[in-house]
């Protein structure tokens, strides 16, 4: 035991934390921890952490109920509830309060606690966020490939030439495998994929088959064809969105997670990886897994940030969605960084307007109603007329914050 060093103990403790030590090693570690009180405390704290995680249900969301234990917060909450009753009573006896601004104005400013929401309702008393990727009411994004029934086969990356006739090769891969008109398919002589025989350019596309001009190439039936990694990832993503469209959220999330895992070791662009991560984030959000959604939006943001040719619109959209998620869980500092910290300037006016609206929400939650009004006004000014839902949100936010002055 006299040879035990800090680094030895740290290494053993890390392995202990991961549950990798045998009983004999645990004995050795326990004995070693008695050499120093600090080590014994480190070991005990690690043991408590492991035991807590393994024997107590880990919270699925920030432990909001714990806050009720605070007498101050309980009193505050009670005051808010009483305030709501007072406001409701006042609203009933008044016959003139029909517009949203007045509803908000009935709330005594001292009791008004803005709590950002994504759920828009006319006359909403809370600031409403705009986040394109988080709108649950949005129908599932259209899948390019029909996958209406569950028996549809999974996308394949490799197939074969099944017919060569009249200068055209027919392959047993199609749109369900991620192919589109103009897609390139690599051809190999055998399954080893080590003997290339050329490339086919898809000209005619079917669901599970495709045709391409052979040209001068010497291609034969049973030669193996392979879809590019990018096209295959697209097929995997479409499979997940198709499951979502069918209402099978569990399968959609599983498929999206598989797509990301596959993409991590494939030759695809960071933007393509970001698309998969963004899809999973959106599915997580739909499944009310806010922590998962935030984590996968962060992964998407990391992928996009690593891409030199990233679309500023894509980057801005993910940042805005992440900021909205942060505000939903009350993390206004993170939202601030995402909305203000050197953000890209998206070309799309609706994305610029979403950010301005959400900056308004941020200002409102921090009690700066003048700045909030300014942001909401700017958002409304650039929101296209053909986005009536978004305009209604910005209008309601503006009316409410004006009513609070």
């Amino acid at each position, binding site marked *: 035991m006299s040879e035990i060093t800090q680094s030895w103990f740290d290494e053993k403790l*890390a392995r*202990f*934390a*991961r549950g990798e030590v045998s*009983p*004999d090693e*645990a*004995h050795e*570690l*326990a*004995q070693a*921890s*008695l*050499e120093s*009180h600090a080590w*014994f*405390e*480190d*070991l*005990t*704290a*690690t*043991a*408590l*952490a*492991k*035991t*807590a*995680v*393994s*024997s*107590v*249900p*880990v*919270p*699925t969301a*920030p*432990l909001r109920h*714990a806050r009720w234990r605070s007498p101050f917060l309980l009193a505050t909450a009670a005051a808010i509830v009483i305030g709501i009753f007072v406001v409701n009573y006042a609203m009933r006896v008044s016959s003139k309060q029909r517009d949203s601004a007045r509803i908000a104005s009935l709330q005594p400013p001292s009791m008004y606690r803005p709590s950002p929401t994504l759920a828009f309702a006319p006359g909403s008393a809370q600031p409403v966020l705009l986040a394109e990727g988080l709108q649950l009411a949005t129908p599932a994004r259209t899948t390019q490939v029909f996958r209406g029934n569950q028996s549809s086969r999974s996308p394949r990356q490799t197939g074969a030439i099944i017919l060569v006739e009249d200068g055209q090769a027919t392959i047993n891969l199609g749109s369900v495998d991620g192919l589109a008109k103009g897609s390139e398919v690599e051809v190999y002589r055998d399954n080893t994929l080590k003997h290339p025989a050329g490339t086919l350019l898809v000209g005619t596309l079917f669901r599970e088959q495709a045709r391409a001009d052979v040209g001068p190439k010497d291609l034969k039936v049973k030669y193996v064809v392979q879809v590019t990694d990018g096209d295959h990832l697209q097929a995997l993503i479409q499979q997940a969105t198709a499951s979502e469209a069918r209402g099978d959220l569990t399968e959609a999330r*599983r498929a999206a*997670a*598989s797509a*990301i*895992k596959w993409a*991590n070791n494939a030759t695809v662009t960071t933007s393509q990886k970001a698309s*998969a*991560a963004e899809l*999973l984030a959106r599915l997580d959000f739909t499944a009310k897994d806010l*922590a*998962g959604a*935030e*984590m*996968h939006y*962060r*992964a998407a943001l990391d992928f996009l940030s690593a891409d030199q040719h990233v679309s500023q619109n894509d980057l801005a959209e993910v940042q805005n969605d992440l900021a909205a998620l942060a505000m939903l869980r009350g993390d206004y500092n993170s939202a601030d960084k995402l909305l203000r910290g050197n953000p890209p300037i998206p070309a799309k006016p609706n994305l610029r307007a979403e950010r301005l609206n959400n900056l308004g929400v941020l200002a409102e939650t921090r009690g700066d109603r003048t700045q909030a009004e300014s942001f909401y006004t700017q958002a409304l000014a650039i929101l296209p007329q053909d986005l009536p839902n978004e305009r209604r949100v910005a209008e309601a936010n503006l009316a409410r914050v004006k009513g609070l002055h």
Partner: protein
Amino acid sequence: MQPQAASNSGPGELEPAPVQHQISGGYRHLLTALASRAHRFGSRDPEAAAQEALTRSWENTKSKAALEFYFRNDVAPHAAPPAWSLDQLLAWLHVVLRYVVSEERGRVAYRMEVSLDRHSEAWNERSLPEPSDPGANQLHQLLQRELESILSECFPKLDSEYQAVLRLRGAGMKYDEIAVRLGQKENTVATWLSRAIRDLAGCIKRRMQRIGKK
């Protein structure tokens, strides 16, 4: 994983009360470490508190077996491992010591007939069993409450990635399943898990240091 105290807490399974020198003889270093902690918890007689915590642990079949295996310096080579892991034993010792120190402070307060504001303690008196000698069941309940309290305080402070990996691990998922679920590599999952436990342990350590100051 949690200490299965309830299953062996029947009176028939309790060991006879140990002779004090039996404990102190083989566990001198452990007693010193526990006494140091008892001092920080606010004990007026840390050595007696440590001795009492160890004595109570000795009375429980499973904690006794774990104590003998992990902390006896002359444990036989290739001895069969006990039912409890080292995690379980250390968590148990922690909560028993806390109970003993709280009990001691309660007695002092009673004797002095001073109305102490016990509710200001993080682990207030409502969480304590009746002043009579607590059974293993009650100690087990205390441990559960302590663990819940730890999670409610420390879990929200972890990074979101670490929270996610702990949630999934807590749900019984394996590394490869978590990797698929999170779209990460297994190595990343292992690293996050390790760091999550480390950060959680850091929070617990700070929490333990606060106990005696309250």
